[in-house]
């Protein structure tokens, strides 16, 4: 997202001067008509702004000022309100993008898996640099943060299609095919249009299910949980979920039953169920697999939640990077409507509930509950002030339950198999099974469904990652542990995680990984609050000093102080966890930091480089320095 936080570091789309003229041109009538039709499709509803803007972006490849004005007029908003949304999301553009937009996954795992060579191959084959659009407007090439395919990196999006395990050779084929006029879909299969949505998804992306556990990835009966829920009172359903010990699987681990109970107790005419499928944490891809293989179970879980809290409206918020799953989910929703499992009078009871699919547009922050709700409301994805909490005032001010994909799936299984069955798995405080997304330096990256309480060492053994030197549990915002802590357990009271387990072997540079994670947070900060917007930039710069060997011993204290300030004063979970890569490596890899610092000579900072600082003035003034250019007198 191009937010204020990003501006500090100078992220900007390059403008192509040949296309700038289009900015001032009047909107063509046929474009205006299509935009009007797009707006009319959602009833000119400003809360559906994401859908409008995504559709316009797909159609026109950018959202120009006159287009924003037209959309604003239709939706009854000001142009600046629309621009606020457009400028927030990475997949919406204020400069013309190519008819095909190639987004290379810039995650650290992709980099280690060979993305630099892949990017170079794309640049060579397309004749443009990353960040540019070809002069004929055919292709744009850019980087995007983790797209949830770490188990098959390096990966890229080509419009709505995903390519995995890229090599420079494959890139040459892709570029030739696209230049030859093939559609991105043709890169997957020449019979793409004849494939079922599920086949289309699995042809693009492997599931890599390495271990199926007892709850989600084992064979699952269709509709058994919902059937039982329909025979139960709402209060009884909540009791069942509470008794199971189910806690949220998106990272925070809030007790699901309690959340439902709060929402059910809130005074309101309408209530809302939202599924958070904005899985953006680098290294996490479990929801991708559930959405592909257990979509019915997920919708079943949402329907059960709706019955429990008395909700009529559902939203499934799917991250923009998973757009290749859109048709699959739409088909599932329609199938369930046709079977009377969604819509009016579900199961012949007096129970109405339907779900709309809401696509995101490339913003990590939208995985935060409040930001996700903002995004569903057609606003920039900024977190909301808490309290009030979403369970009392969420989407459009209505009591709202927001749960992770995996949480809803478990809920459906619990209704089928009973609370005790779920409670008996795992251990005290962490009941049931958990999906782990394992990636990085191991033989078998993929999804492992295992009971809570397993040690990191056991998981490494299963994944063939025994030579790991470091493991990032929980991804970028999680905990980075060293070999001496591999006996720690994956559970809420030890290593709590939404599921990412990223493995690094001894050849990886820990500081490079930390610097990457910090650059990720700098990019993804929404820019609302200063500690997060500015503080993360300072942390990233400070880590750069360590990498360059220019840090002093007191810079370690600086890292700790600044991290503490950011955690204490940030507005949402992004800022309260973004210093974790630094804090946990300081704690668990202290020697790496100790080895890179040295006291400054004469107490003059080596990190200040006078030569580069005066270089631009030297060129402007066309003379040398009388102080710092030693050969001046010669």
């Amino acid at each position, binding site marked *: 997202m191009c937010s204020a936080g990003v501006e500090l570091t*100078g992220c900007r789309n390059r403008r192509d001067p040949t296309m700038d003229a289009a900015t001032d041109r009047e909107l063509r009538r046929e474009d205006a008509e299509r935009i009007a039709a797009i707006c009319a499709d959602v009833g000119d509803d400003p809360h559906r702004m994401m859908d409008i803007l995504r559709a316009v972006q797909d159609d026109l490849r950018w959202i120009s000022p006159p287009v924003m004005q037209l959309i604003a007029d239709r939706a009854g908003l000001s142009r600046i309100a629309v621009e606020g949304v457009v400028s927030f999301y990475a997949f919406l553009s204020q400069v013309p993008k190519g008819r095909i937009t190639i987004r290379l996954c810039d995650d650290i795992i992709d980099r280690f898996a060979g993305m630099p060579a892949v990017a170079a191959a794309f640049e060579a084959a397309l004749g443009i640099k990353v960040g540019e659009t070809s002069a004929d407007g055919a292709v744009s090439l850019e980087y995007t943060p983790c797209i949830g395919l770490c188990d098959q990196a390096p990966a890229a999006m080509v419009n709505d299609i995903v390519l995995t395990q890229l090599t420079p050779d494959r890139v040459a084929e892709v570029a030739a095919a696209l230049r030859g006029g093939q559609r991105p879909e043709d890169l997957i299969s020449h019979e793409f249009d004849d494939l079922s949505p599920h086949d289309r998804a699995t042809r693009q992306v492997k599931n890599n299910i390495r271990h199926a556990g007892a709850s989600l990835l084992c064979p699952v009966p269709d509709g058994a949980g919902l059937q039982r829920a329909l025979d139960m009172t709402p209060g009884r359903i909540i009791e069942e979920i509470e008794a199971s010990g189910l806690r949220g699987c998106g990272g925070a681990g809030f007790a699901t039953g309690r959340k439902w109970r709060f929402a059910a107790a809130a005074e309101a005419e309408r209530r809302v169920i939202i599924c958070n499928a904005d899985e953006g944490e680098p290294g996490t891809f479990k929801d991708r697999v559930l959405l592909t293989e257990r979509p019915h179970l997920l919708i079943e879980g949402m329907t059960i939640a709706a019955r429990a809290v008395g909700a009529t409206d559902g939203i499934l918020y799917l991250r923009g990077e998973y757009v290749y799953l859109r048709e699959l989910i739409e088909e599932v929703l329609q199938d369930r409507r046709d079977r009377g499992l969604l819509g009016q009078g579900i199961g012949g009871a007096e129970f109405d509930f339907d779900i709309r699919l809401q696509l995101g547009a490339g913003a990590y922050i939208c995985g935060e509950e409040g930001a996700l709700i903002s995004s569903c409301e057609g606003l920039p994805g900024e977190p909301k002030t808490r309290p009030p909490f979403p369970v009392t005032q969420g989407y459009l001010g209505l009591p709202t339950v927001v749960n992770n994909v995996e949480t809803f799936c478990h809920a459906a299984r619990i209704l089928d198999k009973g609370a005790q069955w779920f409670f008996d798995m795992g251990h005290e405080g962490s009941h049931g099974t958990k999906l782990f997304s394992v990636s990085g330096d191991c033989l078998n990256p993929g999804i492992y469904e295992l009971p809570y309480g397993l040690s990191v060492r056991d998981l490494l053994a299963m994944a063939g990652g025994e030579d790991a030197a470091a493991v990032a549990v929980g991804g970028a915002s999680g905990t980075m542990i060293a070999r001496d802590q591999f006996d720690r357990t994956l559970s809420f009271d030890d290593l709590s995680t939404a599921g990412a387990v990223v493995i690094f072997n001894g050849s990886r540079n820990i500081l490079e990984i930390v610097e990457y994670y910090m650059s990720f947070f700098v990019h993804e900060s929404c820019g609302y609050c200063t500690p997060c917007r500015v503080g993360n930039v300072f942390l990233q710069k400070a880590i750069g000093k360590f990498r360059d060997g220019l840090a002093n011993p007191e810079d370690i204290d600086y890292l700790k102080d600044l991290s503490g300030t950011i955690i204490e004063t940030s507005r949402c979970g992004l800022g309260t966890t973004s210093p974790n890569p630094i804090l946990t490596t300081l704690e668990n890899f202290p020697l790496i930091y100790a080895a890179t610092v040295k006291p400054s000579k004469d107490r003059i*900072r080596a990190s200040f480089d006078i030569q580069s600082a*005066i270089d*631009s*003035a030297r060129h*402007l003034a066309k003379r040398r*320095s009388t102080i710092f250019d030693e050969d001046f007198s010669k």
Partner: protein
Amino acid sequence: MTELRKARIATASLAGCFGCHMAILDIDERLIELMKLVEVDRSPLTDIKQFTRRCDIGIIEGGCCNEENVHVLRDFRRNCDVLIAIGQCAIMGGLPAMRNAIMHSDAPLRECLEEAYITGRYIRNTTHQVPNDPALPLLLDEVYPCSEVVEIDYNIPGCAPSGDIIYETLAGLLAGKFSGFEREQIRFD
């Protein structure tokens, strides 16, 4: 037996407005007490341009906007036991650092100079040139706070700091009793 010597103090104004030096004079009649304890070496107040001896305390006003500022600051660091940054410019870059906000230009320094000397709406510059006398020190790409160039021991905040806080800090340091500021001293609302 060695005679108890006076502490030696040096001061410099880098990219500042001299307001902090004026604030030093706001110590008023307590200057007389202070001067019993210290002698002033290199300083605009004495017009001594180079260090005559090593000093106990160096006081820096202003941040670094050009190469000479860097040179002077490093000279102070080498020649002073304790280095104090006084005022917002020395501590954070202050007003001069507003030019750091020109960050989306390919040539931010050129843009800054052109606006200051040629294109600005209220400029009356009949030469239509950016000054470039060989005696002028080269500007830095950005304005840097002192702490990015050398290690700073103490910061006295304020714009400018009051004579009271300057006096109390110096008196405390000279007596070996300085232990930071009271909250009341550094609130400005």
